[in-house]
C-alpha cells in the first residue's frame, strides 16, 4: 500500500500511557490532522514516526512508508520529512546552503544549483541564495524551511504545529502554500495541531486525541468546539 501507515502505535512516558494503541493511514496526497491539548503526546508521536523520539519515551508499533517497515531505521534513513513551529534553519548556512543541505548529494553541479533556484522561485524568494536566514521575515523563513524539507525528497510529511508562530495574516497564506505543494507531490501528510482552523484548512480527516490515549474521529461538519486552545 502506498502512503504512510502507523500500526498499533502506542507511546508512554514512564508508567503513564500517552498515545494509542493507534492505527492510522494516509494514502498519497491525503492529509490527516490529529488534534489534542498540549502535553497529550501529539508531538512525541510525530517524533516517533520520524525516528527522533527521546529515549525517555517507550514506544511500540510499526511505521510503514509505501508498505515498507521503517520502524527499525534511523531517522536519517526513513525519508520522512518534518516541519515544526520553529523553522530551525541552520544559522551557520546561507539560505541556499540550507536548501542544499536538504537536497540529496546525488544531485550535482548545475542541476543542483538549478534545483535550489527553482525551490527559491517556488517560494517566491528568487535570488535569495546568499542571504543570511536570520535576515528573513518569519513567513520567508517558514517557506524556506518547507522547501528544504521537500528538497530532501521525503516520502511522507509530518507537520508539528507548523503555523503556530506565524501571525494570523500570514498563517492562512502559509497553510495554502504547504498543502498545495504536499498535494502536488502527492505526499501523505500527518499534522498535529491544537488550532481548529489548521484542521479545517486541510479538508481531510480530523482526529481527536483523548485523555487515556484513544482517538476519536470528528464527524464531518462537526464544530470543533472541544479542541482546547493552548
Amino acid at each position, binding site marked *: 500500500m502506498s502512503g504512510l501507515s502507523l500500526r498499533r502505535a502506542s507511546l508512554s512516558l514512564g508508567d503513564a500511557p500517552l498515545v494509542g494503541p493507534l492505527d492510522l493511514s494516509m494514502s498519497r496526497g491525503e492529509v490527516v490532522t490529529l488534534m489534542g491539548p498540549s502535553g497529550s503526546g501529539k508531538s512525541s508521536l510525530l517524533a516517533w514516526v520520524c525516528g*527522533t523520539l527521546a529515549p525517555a519515551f517507550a514506544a511500540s508499533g510499526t511505521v510503514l512508508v509505501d508498505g515498507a517497515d521503517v520502524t527499525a531505521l534511523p531517522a536519517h534513513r526513513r525519508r520522512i520529512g518534518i516541519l515544526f513551529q520553529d523553522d530551525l534553519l541552520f544559522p551557520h548556512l546561507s539560505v541556499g546552503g540550507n536548501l542544499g543541505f536538504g537536497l540529496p548529494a546525488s544531485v550535482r553541479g548545475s542541476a543542483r544549483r538549478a534545483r535550489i533556484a527553482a525551490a527559491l522561485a517556488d517560494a517566491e524568494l528568487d535570488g535569495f541564495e546568499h542571504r543570511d536566514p536570520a535576515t528573513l521575515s518569519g513567513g520567508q523563513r517558514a517557506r524556506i524551511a518547507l522547501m528544504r524539507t521537500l528538497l530532501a525528497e521525503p516520502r511522507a510529511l509530518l507537520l508539528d504545529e507548523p503555523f503556530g508562530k506565524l501571525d494570523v495574516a500570514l498563517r492562512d497564506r502559509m497553510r495554502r502554500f504547504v498543502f498545495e505543494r504536499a498535494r502536488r507531490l502527492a505526499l501523505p501528510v500527518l499534522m498535529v495541531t491544537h488550532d481548529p482552523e489548521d484542521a479545517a484548512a486541510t479538508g481531510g480527516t480530523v482526529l481527536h486525541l483523548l485523555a487515556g490515549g484513544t482517538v476519536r474521529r470528528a464527524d464531518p461538519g462537526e464544530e470543533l468546539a472541544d479542541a482546547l486552545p493552548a
Partner: protein
Amino acid sequence: MGTARLALSTGTRPALLKAAPAVTLVLFLGPIAGGLAGTAGPAFGWLPAIGGNALSLDPWRSLFAWPGFASSLRVTVTTGFAATAISLGLVIAFCAACHGTAAFRRAQAFLAPMLATPHAALAIGFAFLIAPSGMLARLASPWATGWTRPPDIASVNDEGGLALIAGLVLKEVPYLLLVTLAALNQVRAEALMRAARTLGYAPMMGWMKVVLPLVYPQIRLPIYAVLAFSLSVVDVALILGPGTPPTLAVLVMRWFSDRELSLWFPASAGALLLAALVATAVAAWRLAEWAIARAARTWLEAGARGGFAPASGLIAATTLGTVLALSAGAVAMLALWSFAGAWRFPDALPRFWTLATWQAQSTGLVSLAATTLLIGAAATAIAVVLALLCLEAEQRFDIVPGRGALMLLYLPLILPQISFLFGLQVALVRLGIDGTVAAVIWAHLLFVLPYVFLTLADPWRAIDTRLARNAASLGAGPWRVFLAVKLPVMLRPILIAAAVGFAVSAGQYLPTLFAGAGRVSTLTTEAVTLAGGSDRRIVGAYAMVQALLPLAAYAAALAAPAILWRNRRGLAVT
C-alpha cells in the same frame, strides 16, 4: 522503547565513539593514579633506582624532624585558607551588593583577560608593584614617605605570607566571579530576586537569603579547587611567598630538585602529606559549610528584610574594583619594565625607554614562545577532540553523566600537582619518554582537559536538539549532523573552550618541570626561574610574552567566529 533507542543510535562505526569516554578516562586518570603510586613508594622508603630497597617510615621522620617543618605547615594552612576565604567573601559581597547593576556588567568584561593571565605573570607583576622598590613605594616617595632609597621592609616574601595571600586573591577572585556568574544563570537569579524584592527584601539581603543558598552548591567544587590550589601552589609561592621556611609545597619542590637524591624520600612524604592536608582542608570546609547553613536557617526564615548599611554596596564594589585594578596594574608593570632604560628609585617612570631588553632577549623569547605554543596547541587540540567525542557520545547514546564523573573531572584540579607529578616522572622515566615534549603535552592534558570539558559541556548540552533531528529527517547521518550542523553552530563555544585550554597550558609550571625533566623549557618555567633574581627588565619581558600568548588566543577565539559568521546574524553574540 528498544526500537526507538536503536533508531537513534545507529551510525557509522558507533563503537569507536562509544569508547570515547572510557579512553578519555584512562588517558586522564591513568597518569594520576600511577603518579600517586609512584610518589607513595619513596614516601615509605621504596625507590630501588636510588637505593631505597626497604619499606620504612624514615622519610616521614626526617620530614617531621626538619627544623622549619612546623612553621612551614602553619604558613601553608594560613595562606591557603585566608586566600580562599577572602576571595570568596569578596565575590559574594560584590554579587550580593551589585547584582543587576552597571558595575556588575562592567566587571564581567574584565574577567576574560584577567582569567587568561597566567598565575606566574600576574604574581611577577604584582611583586613589581608592592616590592620595597616597587611602583606603589615609588608613587608615594619621597613626598609622602620621605624614602630616597627602597625601605628595608619585607613587603614581598614576608614570613607571614601576606604577599602570597594577596597575590592568590588577585587570581582567584576573577575565577570565582566567573563560576558564580555561570551559576547565577542556572538558578534563574533574576526571577528569584524579583520575587524577594516584591516581598519587601532589600536587594542585598534578598540576594544573601534567596540566591546565595541556591548558588553556593553550584560553585562548591570550584571553591574546593581554589582552596586546594591555594594550599599547594608552587610558582606563585616561589615568587611571592615566604622563603625561610617556605610553604610546604615549595619545600617539597626544593627537595625534589636538590642534587642530594636522598632528599627525594622526605620530599615524597611531604608530597603525600600535602595531599592529605588538602583532603582534610576540604573536609573541614565542608563541615563549616554545614554548620553555617544550619546556623543560618533561622536567620533565613526570620523575615528580616533590611539590615545592611547602604554603604556596603559601594564598599564591595570598590574593593572588587581595586582587586581588578591591581591585576591590570600588575600586567602593566611587566610592560613598563620590559621597555625601561635607567630607572632609579624613587622615580615613578624610567629616565628613558628602550628596546634593548627585547632585542637582547629576542632569540630566547621566540624559541620559548614557539615551545609554549606547540605544547599548548597540541594539548588543547587533543583535549578539544576528546571532549567533543565524549559529549557527542553522551548525546548519541543517551549517557547521563553522574555526579561521580564530575568529581573525577575535578580530581586533577583538587589533588595537589606535586603529590603525583614526581611519581608520574618516575613512571615516564620507566617508559623512556621523560623529558620529551610529548610527555609534557600529556602532563598538560591532565589539567587542560577538565577546563576544556567544563567550558564546553554546558553550551554543548544546550544545543537545540531539534536542529540535529531536523537534519536527520533531511537525510543526514549522525556523523554528518555532527560535522555539518553541530560543529559549525558550536564554533564559538568550541573556540572559547580551546582558548581556556591554551591559557591553562601556557600557565603550567610544575607539570612542565617534572614531565620535561628540566629539559623542556616554556615561557612559564623561564619566567619563574628568572623571577628568582634576574634583572626586572628581562623578567618583565618573559612574563609579558607569557601573559600575551593566552590573551592572543582569547582574542582569536572571539574574532574567528565573528569574521567567519559575519553574515550570519543567527549566530551573532547577543
